[in-house]
């Protein structure tokens, strides 16, 4: 019946329906992402009495919280700087280098992304902090690294580095290389051309790389907990997310102190959120306003530094960094496991049913989250990229980033408060924990798809869409025939990131539901019980399955 079909189609493409649809998209974002993520801020007002009585009045508590927060920010700051310094030449190499193995290098960079962060943290910590790791080559009876802060730095660099390199290299790709060439024809040496022309045009990329790297480090819980327990440091030496996860456990056990720990968690979350927002806003302003010293030029010196030898040195050292600081530590777990196997270690500590259940839960959550956010994030990306929301577009574009900047533990805590505070809470539902975890994961992975896809769409010349419209395509057809095919690589990249982020997340999961057992949580538990060998096996299985799924997704994105 073509008649009804047409009427239906006309309805779908009518202005009224479009408005409704856009409003729904925005509403979803507010209700399921933004408000739950920041709900805890309201606690500052409503729960102020409790905060001042139970937390501010307790000197011990205050010093614990401030230590945790200090460690978090010091760590995230150091990690971001290291990522940037090591990542910039690598991004350059990936984009502007001409060599045979470039494609392989590209894949190598992404490899750590398939390793769930808790598994990765475990592996990195084993490598640096146990006698069988890096120290093995020096016959040392202890691990190479004994300082817990340095170990945490190494762990965080390993999982945040790929995000930095990816972001920098994507934004570098957008800068027309002709500017650099024009500079060279005007007499600039390669290094000078990069410094005075490309870098200043590159601020946007530096800002997003910083936000991602910083946000990843300040959020991470699982990897941090694991690293601390391997080096034998007290969890109290850890970061703020580790504190919150610890309290959450105590809250669940109940007891007279539970109330106090809830207040402490809320207060710490509020501090984390506010400080992270303030700090990143400052960084953004500084990077945008900061004038690179492009006025000064040292022709002779820079020419020398552009020379072949220095270029080789630079390329070699960024490759060595990738291998030594990221790849080997990230995959050391395989060596650890097989060595253990050869030595005849037993797998007694693993409870197979429990482990399989956790695997099932983890992959189910990651899949649901990915599918839901594809459906709801892509329309938002279009909305932002094509400025369809009028004056609301600009603020939306900024607000989207918030869940990425908020430490995921604080986000999880906030979200838990929000949903359990509404109408008796979700906790009355049978599978409340599962639902809460899904909601939390939806909230913190949402920015990944919106960001990647919206920047891809705004790069697509709108003339293509206009041409299609003049040729008679309706907005839905334009999406299917023009936007989707052109943005497909970015859509898939966003999906991969969401999936990997959800799979690796420990902090947010623990913050909303401390009894739920996803694989990262299970691994943390094994390590805490000192069942390292079993933990290694669990990590390897998790890595293996993630790898297969992500390769499948990637194949989907490159195929038709």
């Amino acid at each position: 019946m073509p008649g009804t079909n047409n009427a239906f189609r006309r309805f779908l493409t009518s202005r009224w329906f479009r408005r409704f649809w856009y409003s729904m998209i925005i509403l979803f974002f507010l209700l399921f992402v933004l408000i739950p993520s920041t709900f805890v801020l309201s606690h500052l007002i409503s729960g102020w009495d409790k905060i001042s009585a139970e937390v501010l009045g307790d000197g011990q508590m205050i010093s614990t919280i401030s230590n945790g927060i200090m460690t978090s920010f010091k760590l995230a700051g150091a990690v971001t700087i290291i990522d940037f310094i090591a990542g910039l030449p690598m991004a350059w190499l990936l984009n502007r280098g001409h060599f045979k193995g470039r494609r392989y290098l590209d894949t190598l960079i992404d490899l750590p992304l398939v390793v769930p962060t808790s598994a990765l943290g475990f592996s990195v910590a084993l490598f640096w902090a146990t006698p069988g790791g890096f120290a093995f080559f020096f016959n040392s009876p202890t691990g190479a690294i004994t300082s817990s802060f340095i170990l945490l730095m190494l762990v965080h660099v390993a999982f945040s580095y790929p995000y930095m390199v990816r972001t920098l290299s994507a934004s570098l790709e957008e800068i027309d290389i002709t500017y650099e060439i024009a500079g060279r024809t005007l007499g600039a040496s390669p290094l000078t051309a990069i410094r005075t022309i490309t870098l200043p045009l590159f601020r946007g990329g530096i800002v997003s790389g910083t936000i991602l790297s910083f946000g990843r480090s300040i959020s991470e819980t699982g990897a941090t907990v694991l690293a601390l327990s391997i080096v034998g440091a007290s969890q109290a030496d850890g970061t703020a997310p580790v504190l919150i996860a610890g309290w959450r456990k105590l809250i669940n056990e109940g007891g007279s102190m539970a109330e106090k720990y809830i207040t402490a968690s809320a207060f710490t979350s509020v501090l984390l959120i506010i400080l992270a927002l303030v700090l990143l806003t400052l960084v953004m302003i500084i990077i945008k306003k900061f004038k690179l010293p492009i006025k000064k030029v040292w022709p002779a010196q820079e020419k020398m530094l552009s020379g072949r030898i220095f270029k080789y040195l630079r390329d070699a050292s960024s490759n060595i960094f990738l291998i030594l600081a990221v790849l080997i530590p990230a995959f050391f777990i395989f060596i650890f496991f097989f060595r253990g196997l050869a030595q005849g270690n037993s797998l007694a500590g693993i409870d197979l049913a429990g482990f399989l259940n956790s695997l099932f839960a983890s992959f189910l959550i990651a899949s649901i989250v990915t599918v839901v956010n594809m459906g709801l994030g892509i329309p938002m990306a279009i909305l932002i990229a094509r400025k369809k929301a009028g004056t609301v577009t600009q603020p939306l574009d900024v607000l989207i980033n918030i869940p990425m900047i908020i430490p995921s533990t604080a986000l999880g805590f906030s979200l838990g408060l929000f949903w359990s505070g509404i109408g008796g809470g979700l906790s009355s539902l049978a599978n409340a924990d599962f639902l809460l975890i899904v909601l939390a994961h939806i909230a913190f992975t949402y920015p990944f798809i919106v960001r990647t896809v919206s920047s891809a769409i705004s790069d697509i010349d709108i003339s293509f869409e206009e041409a299609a419209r003049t040729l008679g395509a309706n907005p839905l057809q334009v999406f299917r025939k023009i936007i989707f095919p052109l943005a497909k690589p970015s859509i898939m990249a966003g999906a991969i990131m969401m999936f990997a982020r959800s799979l690796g997340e420990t902090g947010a999961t623990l913050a909303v539901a401390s009894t739920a057992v996803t694989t990262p949580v299970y691994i943390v538990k094994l390590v805490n019980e000192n069942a390292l060998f079993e933990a290694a096996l669990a990590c390897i299985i998790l890595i293996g399955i993630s790898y297969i799924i992500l390769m499948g997704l990637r194949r989907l994105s490159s195929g038709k």
Partner: protein
Amino acid sequence: MHEISLHNVKKRYGTITALDDVSFDIEKGEYVTILGPTGSGKTTILKLLAGLIEPNEGEVRFKGRRVNELCPEERDVGLVFQNFMLFPHLNVWENVTFGPHMRGWAREKTDKLGRQMLDLVHLFNRALSYPNELSGGMQQRIALARTLTPGSKIMLMDEPLGALDARLRVELRYELVRLMKGLGITTIHVTHDQEEAMTISDKIMVLRRGKIEQIGAPMELFLRPRSIFVANFVGESNFIEGIISEIKDSFLKVELKDGLTVVVPSVDGAALGERIVIALKPENVSIQKGVTKGINHIQGVIERRSFLGTFVKYSVRLETGDLINSKVLTLQKDKTLEMGDKSTVSFRSNEAVVYHHPKDGVRRELEVE
């Protein structure tokens, strides 16, 4: 010593041969245009000269010295990009003084040069504007000033007027020549606009499919095009095919399709019974109403009349079946011809140019791609 030479240069991109055995010499102070359709390899030549790419074979020479491997910043060659490529994060002054800055020249010298070049392009008052605040014409002039400040004596320009609107394009092209000649700069100007090339060049190089078809002064190319392609690309031409029926001194008697004969100048290697192609510029074809007889007179019917301003262009369907264009001055009000009128076209023997018949046919020879 030639200022610039290419010597048997080949440049391949994968399996595509962008330049195939290209050689030329350019003398100091010359204003040379490279004229050719899109994809013919014009930009590739500029890139080779600027050091952005290296040839697969052959040599690039400046003043007789081989410079194949010399990097761009050491060549001291200015390049003006088609889209100007003004650095968007720098203002006009910073853009224009970029070159001297890169060379670490003293402050006073840099300032003096910047000022001088901005004055030259009449834009000193916009020194503090950013590129996106300028019109296309202004951006073009700033791009020019930026390329001039380092004082390079060789200037390469890739379709420098291509991004401007028609009127500005015409105005600025004379400005370009005036500037370059005034500074004694050797210039290579790339364009696909034959009128632009004709009006401003000392020398035109016609490029087609990576090969040089002809190098010469504009007048020479116009009057003595060496190939059918050049005859058509540098001022259009009519082409009529025929067979040589008689060779007499330096003239040929040629039989056209319906048995009609015309007399045209000879061509090297002409042989009795050979197929040839006659090229005629529309300006050299006159047209009269009615039937008149004589040497090189052919009857036909007017199929189209277009008014071009100074000229009127008639398209006449000849008895031979060929369609021929004739351009006549728009003065003779009394003799205006109408569509459908029977008329006679004629031309003088020595204004025709004769070519051997190309083996792939005339049409293929005229293709620009």
